[in-house]
């Protein structure tokens, strides 16, 4: 008997990871259906929403928050039970959360993937850097990454690292005046300030214009120079994939031989649809993917689905330095200090990354001055003075996976009757030890720049880098997917999410997620 399917592959989630997987599959002639819980919104509308918003510091605000597709800043939607309010900036629309990222596209280091072996903490990846390298290259080409391949990105001031088979697709943007000055002051003190590879094109590329410094990467690049997942959702459609919006997947259906046979989704009008396929790729975000698996009772023989949740939970330093540096010219970030990225210290405390914001700081500065009651000519003078000298350091820490840091479906239901999210999250001693190191750096930074410190005890901050929630490993007893991102329990179910990442390092995980997603597409293409 011949079985007929609605598609060769159903991809659930049209963010950067799902859309890249869908595109790679459609390009090879597979019939692909791409499901998206949210709507499709053109860039100009999001831009206008931003410009007319009174909450410009809230990066979710210009985006839709629908009763059937909530953003994560809706407290009704995301409930926290742990000591830390875990609240990443998650969006639901075609293209997903990369609509508002800063497009940092670092590769993990070979050592990041052998954390347990080398340093005796956390977990190893089940695959090594060399296996992933060709996919990093393809992901960089997909996203249009501009970078400096000559630097030691391990932060040790050594040879170019990690190894690359080819150069970056695009040259790096010119070093901002601010960063030139920062390097002059920091280098003699032993700090390696390096350029950040990023998905902002420096020349016209893939229909995108070169970045000209609109300085609004978060929450929306007005011109599409910065990569966002909607670009590959469109590429996937053009390659033949069918995109269905306002379609919330709520159940994966198991069949014979532990295969997934169908996905069920619900429309805002309450109607349900069942789709069958040979393969399923869940790319529904690092919090929503485990929720869907738990609701469906699939892929969880290890009891690790939703556990081991990691972010690069961080802290911040604000200060006013002694020379005009003028942040705000160019993209919102361009580099950072990576001295504590890798080394034997990882046996004792987390890796640490400091990056300097290059966002136009006028709003933060003006809010602060007005709180102090500064008005009159002094207000204009102080805005200019402080804006020229504003130094905003964001620090992130490497996390270790812990089974009690966890996302589960909530008892509360959304408008479709589908459970919302519940998160339990605490920061452990490994990170707290890293914070002590970061605070010593803060004291040195303040001294180097003869700075007036405004804030050096920010409390723990969200960094929106979700990892570990459907953790990757070689042992089916303690992990959800294998090194191919295939679920241990179901041969035809793959997870395309940064949630698979088992050792977090300190770098933004999206590029790695896209590389793994392209690799998933290659695996499925070979088998189907």
């Amino acid at each position, binding site marked *: 008997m011949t079985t007929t399917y609605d598609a060769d592959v159903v991809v659930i989630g049209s963010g950067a990871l799902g859309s890249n997987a869908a595109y790679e599959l459609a390009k090879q002639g597979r019939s692909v259906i791409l499901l998206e819980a949210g709507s499709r919104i053109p860039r100009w509308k999001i831009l206008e929403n931003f410009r007319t918003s009174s*909450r410009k510091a809230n990066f979710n605000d210009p985006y839709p928050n629908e009763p059937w597709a909530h953003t994560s800043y809706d407290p009704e939607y995301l409930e926290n039970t742990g000591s830390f309010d875990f609240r990443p900036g998650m969006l639901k629309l075609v293209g997903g959360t990369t609509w508002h990222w800063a497009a940092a596209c670092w590769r993990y280091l070979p050592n990041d993937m052998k954390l347990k072996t080398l340093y005796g903490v956390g977990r190893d990846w089940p695959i090594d850097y060399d296996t992933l390298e060709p996919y990093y290259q393809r992901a960089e080409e997909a996203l249009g990454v501009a970078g400096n391949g000559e630097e030691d990105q391990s932060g040790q001031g050594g040879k170019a690292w990690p190894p690359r088979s080819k150069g970056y697709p695009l040259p790096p943007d010119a070093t901002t005046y601010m960063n030139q000055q920062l390097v002059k002051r920091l280098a003699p003190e032993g700090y390696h300030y390096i350029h950040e590879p990023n998905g902002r094109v420096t020349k016209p590329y893939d229909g995108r214009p070169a970045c000209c*410094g609109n300085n609004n990467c978060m929450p*929306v690049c007005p011109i599409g120079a910065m990569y966002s997942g909607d670009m590959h959702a469109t590429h996937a459609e053009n390659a033949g994939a069918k995109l269905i919006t306002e379609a919330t997947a709520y159940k994966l259906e198991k069949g014979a031989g532990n295969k997934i046979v169908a996905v069920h989704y619900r429309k805002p009008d309450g109607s349900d649809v069942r789709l069958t396929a040979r393969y399923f790729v869940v790319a529904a975000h690092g919090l929503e993917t485990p929720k869907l698996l738990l609701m469906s009772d699939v892929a969880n023989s290890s009891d690790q689905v939703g556990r081991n949740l990691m972010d690069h939970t961080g802290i911040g330093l604000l200060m006013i330095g002694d020379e*005009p540096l003028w942040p705000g010219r160019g993209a919102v970030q361009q580099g950072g200090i990576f001295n504590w990225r890798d080394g034997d210290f990882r046996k004792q405390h987390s890796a640490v990354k400091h990056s300097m914001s290059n966002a136009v700081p006028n709003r933060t500065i003006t*809010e602060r001055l*007005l709180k102090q*009651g500064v008005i009159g000519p002094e207000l204009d003078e102080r805005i200019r003075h402080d804006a*020229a000298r504003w130094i905003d350091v964001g620090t992130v820490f490497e996390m270790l996976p812990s089974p009690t840091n966890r996302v589960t479906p909530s008892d509360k239901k959304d408008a479709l009757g589908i459970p919302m999210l519940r998160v339990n999250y605490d920061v452990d001693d490994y990170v707290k030890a890293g914070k002590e190191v970061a605070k010593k750096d803060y004291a040195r930074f303040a001294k180097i720049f003869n700075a007036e410190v405004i804030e050096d005890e920010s409390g723990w901050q969200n960094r929106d880098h979700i990892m570990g929630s459907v953790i990757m490993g070689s042992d089916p007893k303690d992990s959800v997917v294998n090194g191919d991102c295939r679920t241990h329990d179901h041969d035809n179910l793959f997870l395309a999410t940064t949630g698979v990442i088992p050792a977090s390092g300190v770098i933004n995980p999206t590029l790695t997620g896209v590389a793994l997603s392209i690799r998933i597409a290659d695996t499925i293409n070979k088998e189907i």
Partner: protein
Amino acid sequence: MLVSAGLVAAAGALLPWARMAYAASPAQASPAELDAFLKLGQRLTGREHLPSDISARLFAALARGDRAFGEKVTGLVRAMDAAGITDMRRFKGSAVDNDAALKALAVSIVSGWYLGYTGTPVGLAVKDDTQFITYTGALMFEPTRDVTVIPTYARAGTDYWAAAPASIATD
């Protein structure tokens, strides 16, 4: 032309978008009150010219839920006159500066003009009491317009940021 906040409110009721918060004011300001508020804004911010439509929106936003707002504005104008504050260089240490209520009112008006919104933003939340007034008209961008951009807008081509700002020697 001056726009009555009452008319703004009436027109606003027809707008579908809740984000246009200036539409919801209960204030029924007269043209004279709005004119006085515009002149007060000019005096407090040290600007000879400010747009009357933005001033009317700011009046409506600040007056929301406060029927005595017009009277408070009149009181602030009188106090500024009495203290001889024709120029804000005379504000610091004045009787108005030393009166907590008057100072708070002055700061809230200046705040609306500079920030382009009223109220207090709440981070990582979907609701707060803020109301949008203006973006490109927010005065906080004026002191740095020659060096940086109003985010979302551009000033030059790729890599312009490598050169030192023209003003660097005097900044």
